[in-house]
């Protein structure tokens, strides 16, 4: 056997002192390898040192292979051909003898201590470790002087301690440095548990975009992001996914360690360009940018959205992206922003082709109120009304003007608004659009043709006058009551007509513009029974439009109704029978009818 180490003193006594000092500096860790240690530190494999083969028993053959870099010593003193970093394995048996080569020890948590009194022995470095040391500037470099001899374990892992860190060597991975005083990952290595936690380095700390990175044999990486050092477990789902995405070139440097304990056993790790979330059910996916911001704004994995089930999928129409989550999807495009689509509305959206269909991209999250929900898309709305399910609504009707401030007349928050619009004055033919509010947004329930007064509309504020002039009033009017020959089912007050049913049309009488009953038919009064039962059954079903009531101005107009018999009227709105019935069945007190010419109603 050759001498265990190449030392420049050659004095056995000094070697013994140095070994003692080194053990003290190492914190006198147990010489026997702890089970945990053995488990944590992956074997470097066949322990072929760069300068000498390690026998199955751990002995270094004296005639072993020469290191690629040859023998290295910081001094001029000649030394025998170095067996390389395997010199420490010369005495593989663990011995407390300070003179014997020691087993591989866990470095002290803090920086390697300096040997003090008695005067520190001097060491040299040789073989691959020595070459590495010299390559880093030798004693004048960041590592400074060696402060231990080289130690090797049976596993083939060798190490040597320097003032500024350690160099580890294995046959498989070569020699790599862990700096204790400089750099970023090295100090974190020592404070984070060192060899037992990280294993030995399989690379030096290297510069990467956004910081530095060092890889260790355990699969752990230490990455400095310019501010802090975080760990990445490259063999874990998150670290593996990060690596698959291109490591630092992909999601960038870490901004946190992996953190677990999330809902349903989830974990996450933040990186400079996104965050990877993992859960047992969904695997590892990344979220980033606007989609991540939106996901978090709705409660992230703790919300109904749950974990991502895909990563971001870009290349969508209009340069958009989408990401699917357990409870819905998030869509983004430059022209629409970033919004969640989920639940029943999400199902309808998907059935309509989602962002590749006519609805294009969402412009809002869904809004819900009063048991109804609605979501705004570029190409329309999707509404949800409980048992009625979902429905797609067009934006191409005048109902939209009730949403965007282009209606000159207020809705007063009505749940439903009938818009009856003529293209101009003196025009009786009109269009009626039945708008309903879903969570505050008006959408068209239906649209149909209709008629108003045969003379058309009077301008806003101008009384329509006696019905014999056949004008309709312009304005926004409430509805509170309906009438006819039998209640079809309505929330409005409903009056069933009889042969005495009249509507007062004679001004300056107590019944003007009011319902009353009489056995006579006088003057301008309307015989509602007559109009309900004549062949055209105008009033078989009808609704009172609260024009000139309840505050009645005499002779300003009366009996403005919505009724059947779709023909030009004396001032009323006439619709097809189905429309009148549907209107009555769906209306409630407080609903409104906004009627007039297009120019008078809309900006």
């Amino acid at each position, binding site marked *: 056997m050759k001498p265990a180490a190449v030392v420049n003193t050659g004095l056995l006594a000094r070697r013994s002192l140095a070994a003692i000092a080194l053990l003290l500096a190492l914190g006198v860790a147990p010489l026997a390898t702890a089970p945990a240690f053995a488990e944590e530190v992956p074997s470097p494999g066949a322990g072929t040192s760069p300068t000498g083969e390690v026998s199955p028993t751990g002995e270094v053959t004296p005639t072993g292979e020469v290191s690629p870099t040859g023998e290295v010593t910081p001094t001029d003193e000649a030394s025998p051909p170095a067996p390389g970093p395997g010199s420490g394995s010369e005495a593989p048996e663990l011995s407390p003898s300070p003179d014997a080569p020691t087993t591989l020890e866990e470095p002290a948590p803090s920086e390697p201590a300096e040997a003090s009194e008695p005067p520190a022995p001097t060491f040299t470095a040789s073989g691959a470790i020595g070459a590495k040391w010299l390559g880093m500037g030798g004693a004048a470099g960041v590592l400074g002087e060696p402060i231990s001899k080289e130690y090797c374990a049976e596993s083939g892992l060798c190490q040597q301690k320097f003032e500024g860190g350690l160099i580890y060597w294995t046959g498989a991975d070569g020699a790599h440095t862990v700096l204790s005083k400089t750099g970023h990952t090295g100090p974190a290595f020592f404070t984070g548990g060192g060899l037992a936690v990280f294993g030995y380095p399989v690379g030096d700390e290297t510069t990467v975009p956004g910081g530095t990175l060092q890889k260790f044999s355990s699969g752990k990486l230490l990455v400095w992001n310019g501010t802090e050092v975080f760990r990445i477990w490259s063999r874990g789902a998150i670290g593996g996914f990060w690596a698959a995405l291109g490591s630092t070139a992909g999601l960038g440097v870490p901004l946190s360690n992996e953190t677990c304990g999330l809902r349903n056993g989830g974990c996450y790790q933040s990186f400079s360009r996104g965050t990877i979330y993992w859960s047992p059910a969904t695997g590892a996916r990344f979220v980033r940018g606007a989609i991540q911001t939106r996901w978090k704004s709705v409660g992230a994995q703790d919300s109904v959205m749950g974990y991502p089930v895909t990563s971001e999928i870009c290349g969508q129409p209009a340069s958009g992206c989408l990401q699917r989550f357990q409870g819905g999807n998030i869509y983004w495009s430059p022209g629409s922003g970033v919004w969640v689509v989920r639940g029943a509305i999400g199902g309808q959206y998907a059935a309509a082709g989602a962002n590749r269909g006519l609805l294009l991209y969402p412009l809002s999250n869904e809004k819900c109120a009063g048991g109804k929900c609605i979501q705004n898309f570029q190409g329309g709305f999707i509404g949800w009304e409980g048992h009625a399910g979902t429905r797609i609504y067009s934006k191409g009707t005048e109902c939209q003007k009730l949403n965007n401030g282009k209606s000159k007349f207020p809705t007063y928050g009505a749940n439903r608004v009938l818009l009856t619009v003529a293209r101009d004055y003196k025009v009786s033919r009109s269009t009626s659009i039945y708008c309903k509010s879903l969570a505050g947004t008006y959408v068209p329930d239906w649209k149909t043709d209709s008629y108003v007064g045969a003379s058309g509309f009077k301008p806003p504020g101008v009384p329509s006058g006696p019905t014999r002039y056949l004008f309709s009033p312009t304005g926004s009017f409430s509805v509170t009551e309906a009438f006819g020959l039998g209640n079809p089912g309505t929330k409005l007050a409903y009056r069933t007509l009889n042969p005495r049913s009249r509507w007062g049309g004679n001004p300056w009488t107590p019944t003007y513009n009011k319902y009353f009953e009489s056995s006579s*038919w006088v003057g301008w009064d309307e015989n509602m029974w007559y109009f309900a039962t004549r062949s055209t059954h105008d009033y078989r079903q009808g609704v009172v439009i609260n024009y000139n009531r309840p505050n009645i101005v005499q002779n300003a107009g009366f009996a403005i109704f919505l009724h059947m018999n779709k023909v030009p009227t004396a001032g009323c709105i006439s619709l097809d029978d189905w429309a009148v019935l549907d209107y009555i069945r769906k209306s409630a007190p407080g609903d409104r009818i906004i009627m007039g010419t297009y120019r008078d109603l809309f900006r």
Partner: protein
Amino acid sequence: MRNQSCTAASDGSWTFKGTLVNDTGVAKTYTVAVAVTIGAAVQGHALITETVQPGKSADVSAKDFAHTTGQAGSCEPVVSAEDAQ
């Protein structure tokens, strides 16, 4: 209502005539509402109330109840019946 007629004279005055027939077993009070309209505009109207005993009939009429320009217009009666008081 049988044999009903509603006609305009050359001066635009309208006359309605008809016969109420009660073929039920109880006395009925009939109300005949008749109006002449041109489009939506009511040109005139009349309301006739007549009680007819079971198995009997009664002629009813309304003269000059509406005026129009010329003879254009639509005249339509509506009859309702209630048990006589």
